[in-house]
């Protein structure tokens, strides 16, 4: 039955796909002499989901920015609906039916859902706003999407998932023919992802084409019809998703074969370094107990909203907690601030690297040393030589890709920014490191390097706490797995006894 439906669908797609709505040829773009896009070819057919794959820095974002009219191309052709596009801007592209759902949501937090959706295209009579009309239209729109969001709610009160749905509603309200989705599921729970996919299928059946950017392989294969791979600014290939095995896709993206993404190493586990006892904070988490030993990785699994990040923030001194105790090397400690936590040897790599991770205007060097400046010198002055030595060492160890350590963080890709943040935390010589979604939104090559790094930290005797929404990642590197659900500990499993099914069961407990 299911299969028959799939066949019917693909036949339908084939019929629809006869119409090509976007054709890109020989697109080139350079930034200060560096070729970011080198003769890119791409085409999009009506009603298809076309995945755009590539590592960070492959040129996907630049390509999308050019399509959106945010950046001009140096040379090449963009043909939209049979018409060649030249010297365009965002307004023009929106009008022509291209919309983008951004990785970072671009909405006005103080305005309501309806006001945001109709921002820039308000309904009015001689400048008098017709609020009733936009609320009515928004409610209809949200209804067709089958989502339960209040049109009167202020944007800032919405969950990230709901904000994303509003972005999609906005794109539809622009009569978009092409919707670009850049990592749309990075902050969504599994259930929300399946809602999104239902919406995508509905849209494509109406002839909307989707350009889908994601680093999550399972999603790509679940949703996309065709896959185009870019690498180092160059077009590699376009293949039908069914005809491209995952192994080939990965090697096309990284340009080499990766045998085992989770490197296995043998080393011994030592004494308990950190013990958390009965940690509680009303409305966030309750009675959390665990310990992590030297050379051990504790994975924390759970759904979005299970309280994983909240526990991590409390241990790292970012938030207060009402009850409970933290022991480091058997000694009871007080973590009143991030500064205090760092002095105790707790390093925290936040899930939100943009807000809490780095200073965009400072250089790689200055970001890496930000948490360890006082220990680099014994006076009030920054020691230039020590600082440079540390930054260079970290840049090499973590394979941070940049022309120099003096490059500012704004100009780095997400994966490299993440490496800089990790380098900063490592520079403060922690004994415990908490990695909260360390591979979110970064490419497979950089992910692999982070897994290797976690193993290195283990062998150096650090206690590692890894929070991740990607179960393969949790299984790949953890020694034990703590499962949280609704702020409570529901299981603590060893890697041997844990299975994906078990963990999921405890996560929805």
């Amino acid at each position: 039955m299911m299969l028959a439906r799939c066949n019917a669908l693909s036949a339908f797609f084939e019929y629809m796909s006869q119409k090509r709505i976007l054709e890109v040829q020989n697109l080139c773009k350079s930034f200060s002499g560096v070729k970011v896009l080198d003769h890119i070819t791409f085409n999009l057919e009506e009603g298809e989901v076309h995945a755009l794959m590539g590592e960070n820095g492959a040129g996907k974002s630049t390509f999308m920015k050019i399509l959106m009219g945010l950046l001009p191309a140096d040379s090449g052709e963009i043909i939209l609906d049979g018409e060649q596009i030249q010297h365009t801007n965002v307004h023009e592209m929106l009008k022509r039916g291209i919309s983008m759902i951004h990785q970072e949501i671009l909405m006005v937090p103080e305005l309501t859902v309806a006001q945001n959706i109709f921002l820039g295209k308000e309904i009015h009579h001689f400048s008098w706003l017709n609020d009733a009309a936009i609320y009515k239209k928004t409610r209809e729109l949200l209804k067709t999407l089958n989502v339960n969001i209040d049109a009167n709610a202020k944007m800032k009160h919405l969950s990230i998932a709901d904000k994303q749905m509003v972005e999609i509603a906005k794109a539809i309200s622009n009569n978009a023919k092409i919707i670009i989705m850049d990592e749309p599921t990075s902050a969504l729970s599994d259930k929300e992802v399946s809602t999104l996919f239902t919406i995508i299928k509905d849209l494509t059946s109406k002839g909307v084409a989707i350009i889908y950017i994601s680093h999550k392989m399972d999603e790509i294969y679940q949703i996309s019809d065709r896959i185009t791979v870019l690498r180092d600014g160059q077009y590699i290939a376009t293949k039908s998703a069914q005809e491209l095995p995952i192994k080939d896709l990965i090697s096309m993206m990284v340009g080499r074969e990766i045998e085992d993404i989770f490197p296995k190493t043998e080393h011994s586990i030592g004494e308990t370094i950190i013990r958390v006892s009965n940690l509680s904070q009303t409305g966030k988490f309750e009675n959390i107990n665990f310990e992590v030993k030297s050379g051990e990785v504790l994975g924390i699994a759970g759904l979005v909203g299970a309280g994983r990040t909240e526990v991590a923030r409390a241990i790292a001194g970012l938030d207060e907690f009402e009850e409970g105790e933290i022991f480091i090397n058997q000694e009871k400690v007080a973590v009143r601030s991030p500064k205090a936590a760092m002095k105790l040897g707790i390093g925290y790599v936040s899930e939100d690297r943009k807000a809490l991770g780095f200073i965009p205007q400072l250089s790689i060097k200055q970001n890496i040393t930000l948490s360890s400046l006082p220990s680099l010198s014994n006076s009030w002055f920054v020691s230039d030589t020590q600082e440079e030595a540390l930054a260079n060492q970290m840049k090499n160890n973590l394979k941070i890709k940049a022309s120099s350590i003096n490059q500012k963080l704004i100009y780095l890709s997400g994966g490299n920014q993440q490496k800089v943040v990790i380098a900063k935390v490592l520079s403060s010589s922690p004994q415990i490191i908490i990695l909260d979604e360390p591979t979110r939104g970064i490419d497979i090559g950089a992910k692999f390097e982070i897994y290797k790094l976690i193993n290195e930290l283990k062998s150096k005797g650090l206690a590692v706490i890894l929070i991740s929404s990607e179960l393969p990642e949790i299984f790949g590197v953890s020694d034990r797995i703590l499962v949280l659900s609704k702020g409570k500990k529901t299981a603590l499993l060893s890697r041997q006894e844990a299975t994906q099914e078990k963990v999921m069961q405890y996560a929805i407990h």
Partner: protein
Amino acid sequence: MQYIKNLRQYGILIAFLAVCLTLSLISPQFLTLSNWLIIFTQVSINALLAFGVTFVIITGGIDLSIGSVVAVTGVAAALLARQDSYPVIIPILGGLFVGLLFGLLNGLIITKSKIAPFIVTLGVMTIGRGLALIISKGRPISNLSESFNFIGGGDILGIPFPIIILFVVFIICSIVLKKTIFGRYVYAVGGNQQAAWASGINVNQVKMAVYALCGLLSGLAGILLTSRITTGQPNAGMSFELDAIAAAVIGGSSTSGGVGSIQGTLFGVILIGVLNNGLDLLNVSSYYQQVVMGVIIIGAVLLDSWNQKIKD
């Protein structure tokens, strides 16, 4: 390409040199040493204020109270500096102390209450002006000691003392901002306050320190001004904060924080000074001078944002 980029980057410098060249062609007095000593003496007070406010602006804050702090510290110093009262060190320390207190007050309210610096320092600006009028009973305070008047009016080996103060403070401020850990934290707090805090930086301490430093430098400027005009004037320093902020902004500081330098600010200060001086030499009315200054401020920031776009 690289050449054009550099040209744009130094666009404001080139514009500045062009102004100097034009002025020196039109007015033979312009390029003389004595004229430049006048320029630097005239800008010394604005320079001290602008250096202080540069630190504040880099953290993403603003200090509107500095003009009033100049008045209140000036009056306080004058009260202590009247002839036959105290040795000269007392009015100096007194003025600096009052300036520091105002800076700490700004910093304390901003860090404890989380009210926007614009509002807090606007309030403190009015408080400061009121206090200056109260302690001086609304009258100028004159008859100051000879040694006190030396600060603003004396010279060493022909170099006016205010210029010496300007350069000493310039060097100290540059080093503090570029070479010390505190200076790095100033940039970090302005660049991304949350990330700075999560990186183990005591953000409130940094903010307290920049407002305190700005207050202290305003105190020094107040002493210098009082000494120069040999009177403690409760109405002195009106709208000085705007000149100081203008100099910082012309010099490349971004009011959204994280960007700026003391060198840039000094450049902004000198540019304003040269324009005022040149337009004076050319007998341009002060009404027109204000219009020119406004154009320069907006032009400088515009040029800066173009540079940013080219870099991106």
